[in-house]
């Protein structure tokens, strides 16, 4: 089974801090995604990547950036954390279009 590991389960950060959320997969999946999940809003796509050094904006990229220097690692960066970025952040991988997703266990980020 594919394993997707997110570095932290819970994080508490202060407003204005730079925050790094890491996601590592142990299979050769091409596609990797960062979502945030908020009550009543479902999953919303922040950024995705379909190859090393490739990235594309999703639905809500504002306030975020990403890095994919190696195929197995996809990092989400909050340049200057704000309280409205308090959320559950989910990383997912996908072998290719029409294949199922594998999600990480999520990082619950609280910005105070």
């Amino acid at each position, binding site marked *: 089974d594919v394993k997707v590991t997110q570095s932290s389960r819970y994080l508490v950060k202060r407003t204005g801090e730079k925050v790094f959320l890491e996601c590592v997969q142990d299979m050769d999946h091409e596609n990797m*995604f960062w979502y945030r999940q908020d009550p009543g*809003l479902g999953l919303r796509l922040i950024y995705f990547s379909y190859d090393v050094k490739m990235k594309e904006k999703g*639905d809500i990229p504002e306030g975020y950036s990403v890095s994919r220097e190696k195929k197995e690692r996809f990092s989400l960066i909050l340049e200057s954390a704000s309280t409205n970025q308090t959320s559950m952040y989910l990383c997912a991988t996908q072998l290719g279009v029409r294949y199922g*997703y594998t*999600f990480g266990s999520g990082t619950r980020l609280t910005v105070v």
Partner: protein
Amino acid sequence: EDKVVQSPLSLVVHEGDTVTLNCSYEVTNFRSLLWYKQEKKAPTFLFMLTSSGIEKKSGRLSSILDKKELSSILNITATQTGDSAIYLCAVEAEGGSEKLVFGKGTKLTVNP
């Protein structure tokens, strides 16, 4: 084992047709059902249906959840070529993000 089954797997229609996509599920402790549209590389969120919100509509798209039949339909009226995509259904269960189960999708092709 939790599962989500979508039908048909693929569908070809002409512009202006109305289509109905189906999603059935078996999941322990159902929380919500989500529909996504995937073009090219990444899915984008369409609707989330829960026990308190079993019908959603946005423009030409609408969706209904039937909790008794453990299923949902996604309707698209007056289809356009831009509706061509893979439509994914996912079911979220109580217990966290690791319980998000996706169906394999319905590939819709709308010909001019």
